[in-house]
């Protein structure tokens, strides 16, 4: 029996050992060197012209499927258009994968020259010290940004520095089934414009035997409701004039938003689903199956939704797309953007940095933005792109694609509508979603849930700041 005893003990030690091993193997240790971002970086045409032969750069992109194809075509077009720069497109398929690999690259040195990084990682990307402040390139190349949509630029501007150029930008919009509206006696031409109208319409739809609201637990929507009211998510002007140290949303305005959502869920007029994992699209699929008559989701999903509807699988659905319902009537703020930007590595040589900038500005030029927007459903980021025949024709034949653009150029351009920038943003979103879910289970009142979200977010933010050495 000694062998059995030995086996069991060994197993215990092996498990304990493997858990500790897991922790130890990716340690960054205590002796790592501090790398300061190249504050005095020069990003200009001289560096590129000095290079002999074409400069090859790696671009880690996060788009998948149809969007990845459009991006690959644009990249080929760029490579064919000139001889100074050659771009290797590396498909990482998702924001999470790209970011995970960037983090891995910080320890093993395998970093891209350009990366497509999601909005919630803006503060993180700055804090890694591995990315160039692209304001240097704007200055070095005397690049003009006046043609861009101001809020798209503002979303990646921190301390008045344009850290990254926007690329794939979308907004949350209201998708609804016009047939269900008609059957319930509602006018599909006047979809709900405010949160309280949405709550009332959900009740009307549900009472009339149509599906209610499919509510995805995505805190991006909560943030956007705050932005429409011109309210901040975090302090220091949403982290835009100083590092965010606490949330700013523990207010009656947030209580009101939570309370209206809770009213809709507790009355059974809305059903929730998680924004992560397998359930992430249940709200959209539910509109297709007739389970729901309305939902809020990203405008970037519109292309996929329209192509699914075109297959004829959902004969009972006549899709309507409306602007994001604002938190209150006569809202003074605006809808914040969402999406990703193009970041340039500061670990690359000056020639590669300049080459990367050439490529970034190609992807952001008038024609590319028009192609990208028409091919994917993202918002064209330049006024001139919106005026191209490509986009004008698209909008004339398919006005639903214009909704997200119109709401992003409408409303006020303030720190609130620029959206927030903070460390551990994803964790804060999880904390807000958890508080919402707890409220929907009936375990917390709306205002207690807001306080719960605020307290756990504050703990996350201060923990992040402390770990970054800014506590």
């Amino acid at each position, binding site marked *: 029996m000694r062998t059995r005893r030995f086996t069991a003990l060994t*197993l215990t030690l092996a498990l304990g050992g493997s858990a500790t091993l897991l922790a130890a193997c990716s340690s960054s240790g205590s002796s790592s*060197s501090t790398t300061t971002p190249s504050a005095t970086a020069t990003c200009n045409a001289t560096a590129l012209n000095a290079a002999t032969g074409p400069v090859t750069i790696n671009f880690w992109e996060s788009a998948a499927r149809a969007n990845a194809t459009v991006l690959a075509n644009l990249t080929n077009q760029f490579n064919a258009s000139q001889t100074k720069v050659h771009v290797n497109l590396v498909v990482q398929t998702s924001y999470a994968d790209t970011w995970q690999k960037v983090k891995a690259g910080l320890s093993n040195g395998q970093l891209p020259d350009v990366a497509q990084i999601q909005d919630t990682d803006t503060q993180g990307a700055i804090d890694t010290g591995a990315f160039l402040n692209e304001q240097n390139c704007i200055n070095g190349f005397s690049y003009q940004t006046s043609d861009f949509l101001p809020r798209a630029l503002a979303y990646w501007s921190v301390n008045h520095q344009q850290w990254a150029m926007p690329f794939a930008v979308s907004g949350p919009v209201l998708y609804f089934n016009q047939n269900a509206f008609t059957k319930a006696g509602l006018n599909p031409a006047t979809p709900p414009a405010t949160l309280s109208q949405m709550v009332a319409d959900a009740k009307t739809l549900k009472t009339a035997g149509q599906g209610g609201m499919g509510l995805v637990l995505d805190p991006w929507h909560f943030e956007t409701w705050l932005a429409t009211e011109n309210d901040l998510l975090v302090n220091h002007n949403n982290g835009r004039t100083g590092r965010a140290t606490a949330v700013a949303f523990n207010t009656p305005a947030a209580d009101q938003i939570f309370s209206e959502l809770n009213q809709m869920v507790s009355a059974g007029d809305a059903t929730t689903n998680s924004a992560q994992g397998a359930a992430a699209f249940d709200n959209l699929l539910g509109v297709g199956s007739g389970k729901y008559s309305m939902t809020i989701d990203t405008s970037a999903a519109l292309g996929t939704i329209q192509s699914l509807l075109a297959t004829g699988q959902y004969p009972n659905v006549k899709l309507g797309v409306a602007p994001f319902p604002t938190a209150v009537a006569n809202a003074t703020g605006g809808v914040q953007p969402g999406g990703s930007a193009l970041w340039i590595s500061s670990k690359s040589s000056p020639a590669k940095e300049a080459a990367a900038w050439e490529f970034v500005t190609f992807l952001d030029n008038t024609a590319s933005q028009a192609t990208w927007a028409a091919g994917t459903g993202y918002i064209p980021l330049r006024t001139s792109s919106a005026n191209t025949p490509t986009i004008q024709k698209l909008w004339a034949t398919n006005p639903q694609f214009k909704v997200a653009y119109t709401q992003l150029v409408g409303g006020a351009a303030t720190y609130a509508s620029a959206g927030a920038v903070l460390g551990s943003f994803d964790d804060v979103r999880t904390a807000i979603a958890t508080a919402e879910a707890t409220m929907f289970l009936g375990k917390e009142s709306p205002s207690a849930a807001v306080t719960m979200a605020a307290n756990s977010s504050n703990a996350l933010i201060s923990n992040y700041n402390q770990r970054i050495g800014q506590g």
Partner: protein
Amino acid sequence: MRRSLRESSLAYLLLLPALAIFGVFTFYPFLENFRLALYENPPFPGLPSHYVGLSQVGSVLGSTGFHQSLVSTFLFVIMVVPCGLLGGLALAVAAHQKLAGMSIYRTIFSSTVVSSVAVAAVVFGTLMDPVVGLLPWLGINPTPPILSNPTWALPAVALIAIWQFLGLSFIIMTAGLQSLPEEVLEAARLDGAGGWTMFWRITVPLLSPSLFFGVVVGTIYAFQSFGQIDILIGPQNAAFTHTNVLLYYVYNALSVQNNPGLAAVLSIVLFTILLVLTLVQFRFLERRVHYASD
């Protein structure tokens, strides 16, 4: 004397490769882990860490996330180990008949050992799916759905772990049953013991080494469960659904939050719990184990 010295040095020489591998991949990381627990790490590699001493250990042990994780872990183990063992025992007893074709059943019952966690998770995930699943169709359809519901998610992942553990438990119990001394059973039968008396008074005590081994292995298996949670729940929802068991918390802290310090503290706790549990099991449970063949 000289000869024995030469022999022992040869022994050490032969042990050296194994020791080197263990040293580099097990002992060094194990010790390094204790050092890591004293440092607060930046959220990204390449930035400086700060020495914070035992304060990190204190703050982790005092956090609600840790308490929640601890409760979930023990609930999970309490659900998995007894159910898995008793289920395996029941199947083993059922299959311990000299009937034609029994080997087919033995193969079926032990097959969960070779099924991958990922496959099991996907199959069970489909059964629990709110739209197309079997369980919702049978009326078990809570809001939010089973796998995002704080009340249902932990029993749901425990069910998958039990199902997976059944195979191993069945094999251990079958092996135990087959090695029971025939003469003892025979004697009991002659003394007029009925089926239940035989089972509880003779079979179970004689099986106690297998049961004991099963408890130890099952406990370790339950503490090790990871795949079901990662595939069906995911790091973002684990805390809310109370499925953030310790091992998953370690992974979460390390890979998602990029926090080796937190992961180090948690893995030391996990190691300590397992060590204490195993010692307790050997000290108290083993006394009640009857080793017939020793």
